[in-house]
């Protein structure tokens, strides 16, 4: 085992245990924290894959911005700890089991199809190359994404803006 594999196992284990902890904690704040741990170790996995830019974006966007808002909302609403296990209905239970089986089949399929070659860059990808690709080959998807984001922004402002009262 080389250093890369050891790092992969460490990050993978942290990521998995964080993900399990998210659904196991009864306190929403702890769940949010566990999610941050998962995001962070995923950033580590991205660095192992030779994508430092994606890793930085992961930390900035998910761990740094979105999760802060999550925490913010949890604290503002002051959600308490779930005292008893909430009983999910029979229909939901069946749906959950169906999704779980589907997910397990996917996982087994991927595990058996996986080859030794991960198909990722050995050398870290330069941010400059990502930028060049974004503005040449993937220009249309990039612009469409930014338009969607802009639409979402305008939508939010329109939703929360209070009409000026005439008084």
């Amino acid at each position, binding site marked *: 085992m080389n250093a890369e594999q050891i790092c992969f196992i460490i990050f993978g284990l942290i990521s998995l245990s964080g993900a399990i902890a998210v659904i196991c904690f009864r306190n929403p*704040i*702890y769940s949010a*924290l566990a999610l*941050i741990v998962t995001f962070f170790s995923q950033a580590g996995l991205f660095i192992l894959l030779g994508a*430092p*830019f994606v*890793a*930085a*974006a992961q*930390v*900035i966007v998910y*761990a*740094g*911005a979105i999760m*802060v*808002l999550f*925490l*913010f909302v949890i*604290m*503002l609403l002051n959600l308490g700890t779930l005292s008893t296990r909430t009983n999910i209905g029979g229909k939901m239970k069946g749906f959950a089991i169906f999704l779980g089986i589907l997910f397990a089949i996917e996982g087994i399929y991927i595990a058996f199809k996986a080859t030794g070659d991960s198909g990722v860059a050995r050398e*870290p990808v*330069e*941010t*400059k190359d990502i930028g060049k690709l974004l503005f040449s080959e993937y220009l249309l998807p990039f612009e469409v994404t930014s338009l969607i984001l802009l639409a979402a922004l305008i939508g939010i402002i329109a939703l929360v803006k209070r009409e000026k009262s005439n008084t």
Partner: protein
Amino acid sequence: MDSVLLLSTIVKIVVVAHLLIIGVMVMIWAERRVSGWMQDRLGPNRVGPQGLLQPIADGIKFLFKEELIPNHVDKPIYVLAPALLLVPAMITVAVVPFGNSIEIAGREIFLQIADINIGILYVLAITSLGVYGVVLGAWASNNKYSLLGGLRSSAQMISYELTLGLSIIGVLMLSSSLSLRDIAAEQGAYPWKWNFLIHFPAFLAFTTAMFAETNRLPFDLAEAEQELVAGYHTEYSSMKFAMFFMAEYMNMIVGSAVTVSLFLGGWHFFGLENLGGPVLSGLISFGIFFIKTAIFLFVFIWVRWTLPRFRYDGLMNLGWKFLLPVALSSVVVTGILWVITNGNRLAIGIGNVVAAFIVICIVGGLLVMNKPPEPAAPEISDLNALERNTTG
């Protein structure tokens, strides 16, 4: 990885980490002495020469104080929070180039722990994590003043992070690199080529945003003592409080170092850094960087005793209505002028200032026009009538 590289990296990490901690102690001493000087009083001057050993005495006191964990706190997070603030503050320094390079045994060793090609993104990513220490410490304290302080602080940090990120994009365009070493090296030896002149409005926006990110006056609403006792660290005592305290000063030091490498020419000063042999020049470049950072840190203390604290709405107005548009204008103008004038620094510098001026005028004009009308002052005859009624 060969042994020389490994050894030099370990040495650099040990030296930089200790310099940071010593820097924190010196900063605490300097803050108290400079504050004293600015208020025409003495400040701590009893322990050691000029009171220099005062921070050590304070540290020993903190360590030996009784560790008090109140009953009503959420214990795991309460214990974790100071570390969550201190660790990001400490590891940001890994990508800061604190000097040029030293040649030892025929090998060039860069005075920087890690020159990663996403350098400045790493800084932004790690500083954005600092907010967790504040928010979680506030929440875990289970105290309404702490929680209010934490919420204020997180709102402030999220708002000013945008300005922080946007204001450096112009700099990145000119250096066409994200590595802090490349950005510092690209600026050259002379002050009129440094980024703070080319991107003057962005420099001001960045510095202001950094004051907000480090929770320093005039933006220290999270711990406004008249309103919130001590804000998010009200319930903390002994070494845990000291960790919050250290993190604040460490953030200041690292922030100053990042500003120096982004805007103030890094280790350059009139070619002084090229004098001397391969070892001496490296040390001189480190000295130049050190002095620049120290001057910037002095500005931090200076501002603290110059500007009064912002009110909350003023803080949000400044961040969203002035700093953010100015930073955006800097991105647009730098991009356009870079293409039109083929990277002429003078044109970009002038264009940036003009654009920022126009943006501020427009925003200011809009604010004045949309200002809600003041409630009309009561007429004097009404007042007289009121007085008659109440006294009679």
